[in-house]
């Protein structure tokens, strides 16, 4: 009886130690893990997480250099999904990295003030601004991810964030029934 108890205790202790050791070992994050983390991110490429894009942030999470709650465009849902993938407790997004409104926003260029300098075009990470030197610039609204990287470079401050057109709020085919019919 005593031997049995002793052996069981030793086995449990060994298993616990192995687990603790495994958690502590800094493994090289596999490319697959980074890919899976990146897939969960909204691809805004805004840099609010302090990294230069979504993939660098994913890499940082995988290597342990960043926490999972640094992505405001992804919101709490993305933070929870990242936490689940990393096997951690979910937590809400840290407001220190930015607080975004609940509705989607896109950039809008005031064409009466635009001077055609192309600085915003160069800044846009997803090529959502159309234009050329000394030609009018305009934002393609349904390709704008709302990253706001175009706003600082503009020398005449003619770019602002506006609510996304309502048609973009739900791009999938809405259910055709009376109480959710398309409104004016």
């Amino acid at each position, binding site marked *: 009886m005593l031997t049995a108890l002793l052996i069981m205790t030793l086995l449990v202790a060994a298993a616990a130690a192995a687990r603790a050791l495994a958690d502590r070992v800094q493994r090289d994050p596999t490319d697959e893990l980074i890919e899976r983390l990146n897939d969960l991110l909204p691809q805004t490429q805004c840099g609010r997480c302090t990294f230069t894009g979504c993939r660098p942030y994913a890499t940082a999470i995988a290597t342990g250099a960043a926490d999972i709650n640094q992505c405001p465009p992804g919101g709490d849902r993305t933070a929870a999904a990242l936490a689940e993938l990393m096997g951690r407790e979910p937590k809400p997004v840290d407001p220190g990295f930015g607080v975004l409104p609940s509705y989607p926003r896109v950039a809008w260029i005031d064409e009466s003030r635009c001077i055609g300098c192309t600085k915003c075009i160069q800044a846009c990470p997803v090529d959502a601004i159309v234009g050329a030197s000394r030609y009018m610039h305009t934002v393609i609204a349904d390709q704008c991810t709302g990253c706001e990287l175009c706003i600082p470079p503009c020398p005449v401050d003619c770019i602002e964030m506006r609510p996304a057109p309502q048609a973009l709020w739900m791009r999938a085919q809405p259910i055709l029934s009376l*109480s*959710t019919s*398309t409104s004016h």
Partner: protein
Amino acid sequence: MAVKIGTRGGLRLEAHKERSTRQNLRAASQPPIVVLPLDQHTGLPAIAIVKAGDRVLRGQPIAQPSGSLSAWLHSPVSGHVKAIEPRPAPHHLGSPTISVVIENDGRDEPFDFPARATFEELPPEELCEHIGRGGIVGLGGAVFPTAPKLWSGMQAHGPHLILNGVECEPYISCDDMLMRERASDVVFGARVLLHALSTKSCIIAVEDDMPLALEAMRRAVAEAGDSRVRAQAVPGIYPAGGEKQLISTLLGVEVPFDGLPADVGVLCHNVATAAAIAHWIRDGRPLISRIITVTGDGVREPANLDVLLGTSFASVIADCGGYTERMERLIMGGSMMGLALPHDELPVVKATNCIVAASRLDLEPRAAEMPCIRCGLCADACPAFLLPQQIHLHVQSGDLAGMARYGLLDCIECGCCDYVCPSQIPLVERFREAKPLHAATLAERNDAALARLRFEARAERLERLESERRAALARKRQELTGKRP
């Protein structure tokens, strides 16, 4: 269990149609004002072609389609356009919607539509367009513009035409009365549709617990002497009148989940739609009124009325003797899928097929919700062969992939699962909340994927430009150093 479940889902429900079908159809009283929302059909709202102050005549077009999926709208009365402004509407309980408000001058002067050749002489495409000009939309509740639907049907090359007279939802009897008294209109409409679709087969489906309607339809079909049209009875199991279920029952084929009936060579229209087509094509009367069942223990004299669009619910109820003291809930539609309305100062729209003034006798109050005990009655009752308990489980845990795998997007929201659940879980309500969430998440993921593609393409382009620049620079340096002595 007191509930009888069909062999492949569905329920045998008490019809509650007796009281509203005792009297003949009659017209509702002329309203002093009509309110006509511009978006009372599926698709884009119509665009008004009149303005405040204009005089309009009965049947005059007042709004035109704004795109390929839209519909015409006509004035049901003669009078003056009082305003074009946001007004509450039954399908827009959250926010008022732009509506044309017309004051009835009581003179009932008709608009003169130019004479039309008989429909058989018109080529199908033209007939289709002409049907659209009558403001015809699906009157079974979906208010899908009929002309675009016929267009897609024409691509199917001679589809089976089904006229849906299977009024399976309890309380609604408007199609029953229509078929009893105006069966010849339905048959005329069938013949118009047969010509428009260039097809040779039309089945008019009638529920087997509507014997008078079935008999009237059979007589009308025999009188018309058109061998392409026949009436057929269908077992009265709710929701036998659901489009997919009806197609399965009549033709033994299933509509694919990612397709339409036209993909399996079928087109389904409501019998009231066919009658509306008849009134337009044969009599030159566009869609300005429809038959509405007014029933329930909360109204004194249940009946079926022919109501002008835009009449207020209050006026229609008054036409039926007003409310009883037991009146509790106002429902537009039937007891299983109807919309409960907060008040009756709302206009009748093309989708209004029934008004149930319900009292405690009609409604079965829902008890407190208990956890799911996995009894499986919901799965037995589901006409789409789903496992509602599993969808419910995944909805509760927010698992979007799981919801979709068990068929959330295939749910037709008929309410059968809700009805049989011993734990009184409001399943349909949960699924209706979950569907937009699922759609929005899918849309978000799509957007993210596209944004990523653009980002990576841009990064590649910049890198390419950079390496080209460096290569050019190196070549330049090469040339310069080569040139030096």
